[in-house]
Structures are given as C-alpha cells and as structure tokens.
C-alpha cells in the first residue's frame, strides 16, 4: 500500500512537482524498501537517457524538397481543375451539337395543331404558330449539317486538348515520386 503511494511521489519527483515533506517521506521509504529503491534507480536511468537524447536533424536540403513537392502538388491541382473545366466544356459543346437532333420543335407544333380544332380565333393563332414553327424546323433542318460539323470539330479539338493536358499530368507524376524518395 505504501509502495503504491511512493510510486505517485516518484512520478511527481520526475515532474519536479514534489513538496519538501513528500520528498523527505520518499527518501525515508527508499532507505527502507529495496524494491522501490531499485525501481527509482531504473526510472532515473530512463529519465537521464531521455533527457540526454539529442534532436535528430533532417538531411540537408529538406526545405527545398518540401517546397518542390508543394509546387508539384499545386501544379497537379491546377491541372486537375483545368481538366474538369475542359471536360465540362466538352459536354456543353456536345449538347450544342446534338440540339437540332433532339426534335424539340416538333412537340409544340403538334400541340398547336390539336388546339386548331377548338375555335376560330384559336384556329388563326394556331395556324400562325404552326406555320412559324414549321419554318423554324425547316431552317434548323437546313442548318443541321453545318451545326453538326461545327460541333464535331469543336469536340475533337477539346478532346485533343484534354488528352494533351492529362498526358502532361502523367509526365509530372514520376518526378513527384523521385522527390519523395
């Protein structure tokens, strides 16, 4: 029981937090108890070893290696962001190129044709609307090949740029590994 209390004193002594009374009681106990005396000797040996151990310094050029790794990581991040922007651009162009194919104009045209049977005023309006939409469809149909070829050209250009971009990123990656080693 007393040895357990003395154990607490030993810890406080190592932390420099022992009162003079406790210090005296500890010394009294150590003079009488061989087990605690041996334990105290071992603790002090460890304490000395820990306090004498030096700081391990990093190899020369550490700061340079950190900064070059930081620089590479920032370039890769910028590269990935650029890639995302290019990919989004590609999708937009793809949608633009495919828009005339979607037949978005035919559905309202049919709706107007249905309304035509409902009355005179509506009939006139529907006639005008239907005519307008038909002409729009014809215009879109005429422009379709040109729009398609334009969209495809843009798509090919964007994909080439994407591939070149990711190729550049891949060429950066082995260099990062070299720096890490």
């Amino acid at each position, binding site marked *: 029981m007393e040895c357990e209390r003395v154990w607490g004193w030993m810890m406080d002594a190592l932390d420099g937090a022992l009162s003079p009374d406790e210090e005296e009681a500890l010394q009294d106990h150590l003079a009488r108890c061989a087990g605690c005396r041996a334990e105290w000797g071992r603790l002090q040996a460890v304490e000395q*070893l820990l306090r004498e*151990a*030096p700081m391990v310094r990093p190899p020369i050029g*550490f*700061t340079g290696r*950190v*900064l070059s*790794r930081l620089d590479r990581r920032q370039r890769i991040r910028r590269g990935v962001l650029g890639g995302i922007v290019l990919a989004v651009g590609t999708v937009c162009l793809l949608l633009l190129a495919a828009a005339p194919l979607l037949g978005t104009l035919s559905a309202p045209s049919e709706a107007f044709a249905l309304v035509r049977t409902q009355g005179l005023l509506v009939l006139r309006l529907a006639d005008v609307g239907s005519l307008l939409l038909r002409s729009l469809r014809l215009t879109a149909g005429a422009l379709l090949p040109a729009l398609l070829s334009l969209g495809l050209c843009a798509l090919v250009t964007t994909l080439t740029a994407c591939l070149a971009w990711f190729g550049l990123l891949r060429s950066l990656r082995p260099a990062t590994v070299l720096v890490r080693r």
Partner: protein
Amino acid sequence: MDEATWIQQARGGDVSAFGHLVQLYQTPVYNLACRILGDRMEAEDAAQETFLRAFRSLDRYDPDRPFRTWLLAIAAHHCVDRIRRRRPALSLEAVSLSEERDGPEAALLRLEVRERIQRLLLILSPTDRALVTLRYWYDSSYEEIAEMLGLSVSAVKSRLHRARRALAQALEEAE
C-alpha cells in the same frame, strides 16, 4: 521579418514565406517523426507531408495559439495514423540497420545512445511514443500534450506514468 508575418503571407499563398517556416521548424517536426516512426526514410516523408498539410490548412490555424504546437499536433497525428495503416513488416532490427548505415565511425558512440533510446521507444504504442517525445524533447506541459494529441490531461498523466514504468522495465531487461 518575424514568424507572424511569414504565417500571414503563407496564408495568402506565398510559398517562399512558407519556406521560411519550414526552415524554422524542420528539426522539431523531423525529430518528432523520427521518434514516433523509428525510421529515417519514413520520417522524412512524414515530415514533408506534415508541412504540405500545414500549408493546405493554414486557413484553420488560430494565430492566438503557438504555431509550433499546431504544427507538432499535425505531425504527431499524421505519424500515429501512418503506423496504424502500416503493414506489420518493420522490425526492430530493420530500424537498427537503417540507422547504422548512415553513421561515420566517429559518430558511433552518439549513434549508440540514439539507437538505444529509439529501441526503447519502440516498445510503446504510437500515441505513447508521441507523448514521451513531446514531453522530453519539447518540454511540453501536460496541458499542451493533451491539446496536441486530443487526450484529457489526466489521460496524458497516467499514460506517461505507465510509459515511464514500461521503459524502465525494458531498460533493465536490455542490460
């Protein structure tokens, strides 16, 4: 220029200002990584990673707290996580050999002390290694260690006491 200015500039993305901070804290961070990981190559990688993480998280740093404490906390957590993710391949012998290779004859004695303490530390759990290192190499208080490792002050105290006893036991067995 002082540390606060470098931190301020690094927060704005100034890499060269951050370089001054790396220069200033490279030894404390590297030493902590070495003591926890027990391997110089891995410690270099972990110390570099610590600085990269710090750069990325500078926005979250509270300027009212010491930068060193904040940085060492990042290093300690990263090293402890590394050991937890590590495959059980690195033996005590491997650590010892990796230390011996790079020391010239004249430094052998110093190396022996360092290796002895390193071998002792490796009997502790990663968190206890971090705790003992912060206490003895950095003179951190119980409160600072608790904050850095995310433990309560009483847990730090009882873990340190247990670690001291375990180290004393191991030292006796080694001799």
